[in-house]
């Protein structure tokens, strides 16, 4: 496919690796923000090809992984109501809540459906006027325009049996929270490529300046990732800390203005709790007052529920880059993709799932030497 294959070219990747090896003189820890970037890094073994002084920390950019336990439990409570058709992206179905996952609800006869797009959920509402259709609106800024569009269209068309359970989060406050944490080890960030196609890059320059940390907006293919790493290492070696855009073919400084307007129309910023990170002020989105009639939390009154994390799961430390999956005692043993203990193993973008899929539980000794 054009604009995809070229960025997987092994010889371009090799040349980038050589360049990095030549210029890297000090040890650096670089965090890639997006789960999709983590997945690509582990799949292509990029972390193992970098010079030993360059360590990649896996960030919490996996929307499934950071969805708070309370939201999973609320989703459960809504999906269990008679007559509800509960729609979600596929990954969310297997995230363990306090009392099992959504898939097990489906197995017990509740109508839980996987959809590719929030518009599919809206169409289900139109096609099933006597059922309440709820869409689990999770994600970062990348899914916000789609979720906003579904809400906006549903209200405009007067679709009364459609509502959304919102768990939208924002990247910039998350980066600030990581940088302000006492155990922070991040020297530079590979910024979120697809989030920035929507929002533009403007929010990231202040982060680079305030915290003295290079932020290189990076794509997802091997050549893109290595280009991002190379540019980050170059800045670090030269003592610079600026915003760079290494994904210019789809990221512009301004982003997508139609998408931004739509998000601003439907959503407003709010405080949000992140699984594994705790509550981060102004880090999420909620429906604005004109659209609150479509809020599933209100419609089904599911705001108060007991939550209970499994003790063994160290997702929180993984999401902050403080541990690697293969440093978790449960990894590959009690915790596998078939029997996940936490979200980072369930989600296709989760670091634990990535490590397991690409056999990192089979290479313990090699990674243990490199891990810190």
């Amino acid at each position: 496919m054009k604009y995809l294959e070229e960025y997987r070219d092994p010889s371009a990747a090799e040349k980038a690796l050589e360049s990095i090896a030549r210029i890297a003189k000090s040890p650096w820890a670089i965090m890639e923000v997006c789960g999709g970037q983590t997945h690509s890094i582990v799949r292509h073994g990029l972390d193992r090809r970098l010079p030993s002084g360059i360590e990649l920390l896996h960030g919490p950019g996996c929307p499934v992984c950071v969805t708070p336990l309370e939201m999973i439990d609320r989703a459960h409570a809504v999906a269990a109501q008679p007559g509800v058709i509960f729609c979600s992206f596929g990954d969310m179905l297997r995230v363990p809540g306090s009392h099992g996952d959504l898939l097990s609800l489906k197995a017990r006869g509740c109508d839980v459906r996987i959809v590719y797009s929030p518009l599919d959920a809206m169409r289900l509402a139109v096609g099933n006027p006597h059922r309440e259709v709820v869409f689990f609106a999770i994600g970062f800024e990348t899914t916000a325009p789609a979720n906003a569009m579904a809400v906006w269209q549903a209200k405009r068309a007067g679709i009364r049996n459609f509502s959304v359970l919102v768990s939208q989060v924002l990247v910039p406050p998350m980066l600030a929270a990581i940088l302000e944490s006492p155990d922070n080890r991040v020297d530079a960030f590979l910024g979120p490529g697809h989030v920035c196609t929507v929002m533009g890059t403007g929010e990231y320059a202040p982060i680079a300046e305030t915290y003295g940390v290079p932020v290189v907006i990076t794509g997802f293919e091997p050549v893109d990732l290595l280009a991002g790493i190379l540019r980050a290492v170059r800045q670090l070696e030269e003592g610079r800390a600026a915003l760079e855009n290494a994904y210019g073919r789809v990221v512009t400084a301004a982003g997508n203005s139609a998408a931004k307007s739509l998000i601003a129309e439907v959503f407003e910023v709010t405080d949000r709790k992140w699984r594994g990170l705790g509550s981060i002020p102004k880090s999420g989105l909620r429906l604005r007052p004109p659209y609150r009639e479509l809020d599933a939390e209100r419609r089904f009154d599911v705001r108060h529920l007991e939550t209970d994390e499994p003790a063994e799961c160290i997702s929180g430390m993984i999401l902050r880059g403080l541990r690697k999956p293969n440093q978790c005692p449960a990894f590959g043993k009690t915790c596998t993709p078939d029997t996940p203990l936490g979200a980072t193993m369930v989600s296709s973008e989760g670091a634990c799932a990535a490590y397991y899929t690409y056999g990192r539980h089979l290479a313990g000794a090699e990674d243990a030497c490199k891990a810190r």
Partner: protein
Amino acid sequence: MVDFSGIAKRVCLELLPDIRVGEFVLVHVGFALARIDEAEAARTFSLLEELRQLSELQESP
């Protein structure tokens, strides 16, 4: 309709009002979010080459 390497899918183009047939787009959950800029796409490689040449002048000890 958008062509994904031969598979045609219905995609919402509302967020890219100026998009034209024949252009390449980035799609996420059923929505086209950005057009792909051909010149920038090539620039990824030319910049990598520039940085490679620069790095040769600074071999690691």
